[in-house]
């Protein structure tokens, strides 16, 4: 499989009380196309920071990020925005849906930013909502949906533009067990059908059981990187 992301000597340093705190320390790894992998570790291990740097939401203090062998770290904010627009879909723990918009409009947003025309948008939104089983909730507002349904909308919003990679930060943290499994099944299916790369940040065993690759972090360093047969 083709290498999608390569990280080289990545540090993320925050000044804390006059001293440097290493949120990430000399992280090096690569992620291939189509992987269903996760950054695993306890709170404060650097999972979200690493996810943010990969997704061009944050910049490393040292080291580089490459996407298809092209250096994408330390680029201008506008280029980073373009990179995110065309390559990444994000799923957040708290869904981050826009409450003033309907389900349809929330899913439509990334496509509007991409400048797609109405008919192309409509087709893509319909398909994305079919994947997550929410075609009957098109006109609903997020406030009227359950947590599981909101996260499905977030998945549809992340997937609708067919990104190269979906970055999911603790996607099941606010969901009960049943909803978590449903969500994970949905994402795994999408991964299988579309070949979209998924990278999770999690410490939830339910999520870990679905992953085919586990990258363990502790104190900002990769301590283990292994493949596994999903247990679900």
């Amino acid at each position: 499989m083709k290498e999608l992301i390569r990280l080289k000597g990545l540090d993320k340093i925050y000044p804390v009380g006059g001293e440097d705190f290493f949120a990430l320390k000399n992280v090096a790894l690569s992620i291939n196309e189509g992987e269903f992998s996760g950054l695993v570790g306890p709170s404060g291990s650097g999972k979200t920071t690493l996810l943010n740097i990969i997704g061009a939401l944050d910049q490393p203090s040292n080291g580089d990020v490459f996407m298809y062998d092209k250096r994408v770290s330390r680029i201008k904010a506008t280029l980073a925005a373009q990179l995110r627009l065309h390559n990444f879909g994000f799923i957040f723990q708290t869904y981050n849906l826009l409450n003033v918009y309907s389900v349809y409009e929330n899913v439509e947003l990334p496509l509007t930013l991409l400048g797609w025309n109405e008919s192309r948008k409509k087709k893509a939104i319909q398909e994305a909502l079919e994947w997550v089983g929410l075609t009957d909730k098109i006109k609903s507002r997020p406030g009227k949906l359950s947590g599981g349904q909101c996260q499905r909308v977030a998945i549809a919003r992340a997937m609708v533009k067919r990104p190269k990679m979906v970055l999911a930060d603790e996607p099941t943290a606010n969901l009960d067990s049943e909803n978590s499994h449903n969500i994970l099944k949905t994402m795994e299916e999408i991964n299988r059908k579309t070949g979209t790369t998924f990278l999770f940040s999690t410490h939830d065993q339910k999520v870990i059981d679905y992953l085919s690759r586990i990258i363990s972090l502790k104190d900002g360093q990769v301590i283990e990187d292994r493949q596994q047969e999903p247990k679900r």
Partner: protein
Amino acid sequence: MVFKLALKNLLSAGLRTWLTAFILSLTLAAMLFMQALMAGMLDEMSTIRQNEEIAGGQIWHEKYDPFDPTVLEKANAALPNEIQSMVEKGDACPLLMISGAIYPKGRFKNAMLKGINPNQECLKLDFTSLNKINGDDRLSVMIGKRYADTLGMAKGDILTIRWRTRAGAFDAVDAEITSILRTNAPVMDQGAVYLSHEVVNKMNGTLNHSTLVWVKTDRVPPHIEGWVFRDFMYLMKDTLDMVKSKQVGQSIFYGMLLFLGLIAVFDTQALAVFRRKKEIGTFMAMGMSNAKVVYMFVIEGTMYGIIATFLTLVWAGPLFWWLAEAGMSFGGASGDDWGMAFGDRFFPVFTFGRVFGAILFVNLMVIFVSFWPTKVITRMLPANALRGRIS
């Protein structure tokens, strides 16, 4: 998309949006009303003073000074040919002023005796009753309505006029008020007793002398020896200066109102940036650039101005239209009470330019204060915004 989202955000904010927009709307309406009222006052004063006091301008005897009554005695002369021919053509109307006194009901009052052609056509005032011939050789005089009220006199009343002749002797004569002059120009009313031009000349011991001449237009012969032309703008200078000084005070007042309205927008925007950091982060994560997020917030803020404009047109538009048509009264007081030339109703003047200018000004200010608190977004890292941090 940005417009749609901004509108949805505003509408979802409910009461906060409407309150902010209403404060702005009040500010805009107050600005428009005060500007229109001042313009209306100026328009009316100009019209009244032109029609009833200044005409197209005045040609003064070179010694005449309206603020120095001591020179009045010498400030008259026979009109030179150039001006006399204008008078004969009806393009100019002479006035002779001498100081004197009147004795209404036995009391003494200083008065300005003004000799005017009863059939004059320079001012839109009717002096024809000065032509009336009374019994007992009483002179015909006119006094202004306010002056008559002050003196407690009315049409048909008799008063004694005393004056000093050119030779220095005092003389007196009885006169009958043949008509009350109705004018909104205070200068033409208070302290003035009108007689015919010929009579005042006789009283003064002169023949066809004048202190000043009203002209219908500003087309007058240049450089007439011993006479000075004062055009309309010169004679309106006191009014214009007064309006200018009022406008300064007025600007301070609506500047304060505007400041309050803009503070509301600024506050709403600053609060929005603070409260909606996660939303900002989400937009950035989806690929929206910082500049576009700022743009979206500015559009949102700008919409307060647009909503306020719409609100103003809805509630204040009909009200202003009615006021412009019907005028407004300030408890029966007239401009005369304040020494200004206007009637007992004020008519605000709302021109397209004035309304458009005020709307444009308010909206530009709103755009500016909408942008200011969102500047912080330009430096915001998406990861920090998602975490709820400003930078």
